[in-house]
């Protein structure tokens, strides 16, 4: 009987294998990592507990139910100084979302305009847009916020300038007043609102707008179908206009839309909507700063579409605007949208700079006055971070879904 020479000798398990054998080494490393992780977390928490005990503090969330005792100058929902700290935080969250939404819309507008014009073959316009992008990208947003806030509060006149027979300033169209306390605009109001409440009327308006949107979409689908069948695209622009405007106009007349104008009464304007200088400073600064970044993304996206696509479209005889709308932009959007969404995220995070101009967002209420009044620093900052992380993670989740849906299906 011949011996099998290549049978490996069976060895017992040695302790050294934990470090040198690739089969076990990863477990050893992870165990070490786990021990270090828990060790340092434990060390930090024991420090925390010792320090809290030394300072006579504890972790408690009861303060959220106590009355806040401070006022907030911009209240999207009902709020008084007797409301709880929790309600103050919710007002702050809403204010954050308001300024973030306004800034996102405006920044997209600035960014798309500047990004497209920067590629224009008009020399002056292209240079002007480059100057805009470079000037705003290379200066801290905090400085822009302060500059615009200073313009709002220092350069504009007080309400007093509008008083008297021969006032220094007069209201624009008798509707808008630009003062150092903010901009006053007319407020729309329904005289005979739906079910007696303004809010229901506005919901109805939104519903009608949504219905118009779907109507216009159905119209476009029909037009495309007709074009595919007959070769001629029916002219639809006046139908589109009618679908947008007619139902809205009927609704406005039926509910009795009227405008409440701001009026100078005593030392200040009454009535209308007051848009505070802090909101405008934050909104405009974030929009124009982030707009410069979005302009770069738009430019990069358009340049990422290969020149052959433009030339192919031109050789098909498409005119300039169709080349942009039908060929270049749909392909560029795939590149533009992911960085665009992360810019929206940046706007939301940068809106926390509101505290520099006294706009009462969630950092100003929960992380500012509530924190200082109650001294509950750890709880407040933890809640604040949780809010921002939730927003970021949900936006990232949306972005991932979008990325997967537009990913190039490769062979």
């Amino acid at each position: 009987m011949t011996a099998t020479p290549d049978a490996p000798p069976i060895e017992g398990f040695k302790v050294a294998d934990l470090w040198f054998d690739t089969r076990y080494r990863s477990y050893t490393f992870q165990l070490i990592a786990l021990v270090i992780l828990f060790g340092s977390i434990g060390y930090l928490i024991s420090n925390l507990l010792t320090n809290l005990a030394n300072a006579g503090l504890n972790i408690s969330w009861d303060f959220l139910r106590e009355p806040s005792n401070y006022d907030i100058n911009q209240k999207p929902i009902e709020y008084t100084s007797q409301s709880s700290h929790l309600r103050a935080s919710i007002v702050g969250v809403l204010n954050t979302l308001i300024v973030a939404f306004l800034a996102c819309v405006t920044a997209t507008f600035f960014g798309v305009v500047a990004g497209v014009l920067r590629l224009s073959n008009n020399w002056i316009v292209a240079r002007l847009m480059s100057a805009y992008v470079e000037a705003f990208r290379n200066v801290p947003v905090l400085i822009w916020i302060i500059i615009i806030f200073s313009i709002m509060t220092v350069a504009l006149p007080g309400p007093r300038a509008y008083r008297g027979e021969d006032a220094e300033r007069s209201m624009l169209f008798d509707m808008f007043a630009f003062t150092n306390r903010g901009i006053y605009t007319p407020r729309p109001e329904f005289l005979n609102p739906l079910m007696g409440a303004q809010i229901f009327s506005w919901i109805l308006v939104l519903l009608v707008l949504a219905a118009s949107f779907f109507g216009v979409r159905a119209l476009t689908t029909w037009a495309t179908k007709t074009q595919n069948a007959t070769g001629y695209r029916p002219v639809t622009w006046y139908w589109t206009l009618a679908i947008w405007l007619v139902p809205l106009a009927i609704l406005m007349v039926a509910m009795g839309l009227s405008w409440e104008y701001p009026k100078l009464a005593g030392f200040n304007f009454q009535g209308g909507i007051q848009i505070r200088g802090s909101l405008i400073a934050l909104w405009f600064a974030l929009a124009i700063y982030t707009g410069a970044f979005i302009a770069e993304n738009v430019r990069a996206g358009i340049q990422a579409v290969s020149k052959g696509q433009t030339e192919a479209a031109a050789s098909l005889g498409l005119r300039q605007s169709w080349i942009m709308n039908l060929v270049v932009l749909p392909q560029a959007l795939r590149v533009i949208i992911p960085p665009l969404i992360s810019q929206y995220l940046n706007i939301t995070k940068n809106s926390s700079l509101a505290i520099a101009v006294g706009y009462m967002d969630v950092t100003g209420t929960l992380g500012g006055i509530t924190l200082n009044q109650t001294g509950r620093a750890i709880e407040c900052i933890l809640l604040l971070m949780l809010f921002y992380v939730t927003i970021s993670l949900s936006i990232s989740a949306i972005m991932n879904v979008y990325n997967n849906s537009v990913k190039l299906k490769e062979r």
Partner: protein
Amino acid sequence: MAAKKSSVAFVRKEPLPAMPPPARDRGAAKWIRENLLSNISNSVLTVLSIIAIYYLCAFVLPWIWNGVWTTSSLAECREVLQGVTGGCFSVLTERWNQLIFGFAYPSEFYWRPALAFVLLFFAAAPVLFFDLPRKLLIFTGLYPFLAFWLIWGGPIGYPLIGLLGCAVGYFVHSVLVARNFALGLIVGFAAAIATWSLGSNLVGALAPEQPLLGAVESRKMGGFMLNMILGTVAVSLALPIGIALALGRQSRLPIVKWVCVVFIEFIRGVPLITLLFVANVVLAYFFPPEANIDILIRVIIMLTIFSAAYIAEVIRGGLAALPRGQYEAADSLGLDYAQAMQMIVLPQALKISIPGIVNVAVGLFKDTTLVSIISMFDLVGMIRGPILASTEWNGVYWELLGFAAVLFFIVCYGISQYSQWLERRLATDHR
């Protein structure tokens, strides 16, 4: 009838000289027609932009041209101007030292941070430009300790011990790394920390009464100097941490991977200002009760982990952009993880990531202005605090804010131009 003459009276023997192109098709006229007035919408845009530029110039140029540079208060400046449009730039000349060094830094020591700033260029040059002799990197290695000593002063022993600790750690690491990378890393760190703790006790005991350079406390740092300190320190500390986090996120070990993912996503999900609040009011609770870490160090810690998370994401992009074949080639050469990363993967991945890293650095430098919100007196903090609140200069907004904007623009624009140059320089793929 006479014989018919040739019907051709004249035949030109040589071609006509070429006529010049029509005036509208050459020179400036052509350029203007094609670039500015090619169609109606283009012409409208041109006219609008010229009007915009005109208004901007009409507004800004007289303001700069009539500027006053030598008065000592706003009232005096207004007297000199007598109602003419003009900037009171004298606030910049009069408060120059405060804007640059803050209001508490001892004025007899101003030369020290200024020298450190000049030396920064010499230290950074060999890192930024590869053509310079590599020997200059020695100075780059010494610079952090030198700059610390110049700016903070105090006994020279502390920076020397810091340097010694690094040297000991590096020596131990290089002896042991031949046997095992992880062993070399861990023991090297341990040796460095042991040197520091022993050495600092020793220096504390031996320090002379009157050190060569007088000590300056951290809370006296201010002005643009504070922005520079925070930016450079945080970015240089964040780079190695960011590389480690990026490698950890790519790791095959699930625990390491998830720790890194949670850390990066959490830090990237919150605004910097909340992290600065943490530095201001919460972080002190996590240190041992007897430790008294000053606010500057706490802010540097938070800025460092903030930018480390962003740098990690940039480097992860670089790692992901490397073709799979590079990793497999390293494996097939029999390199272990540490060797493969050091010699094959990281050099290529970092090269791809340089523009992104520079963007993070520029962003962080701009974000250092946020420390003014937690009442540190950086450039913006100085402007909004002591200078605008003073009786002499109450109300000089545009000159000061414009100065801050210009200063940041110069630095950030310079860095981004460098980054573009480097990108062209490193583009070795011949496309």
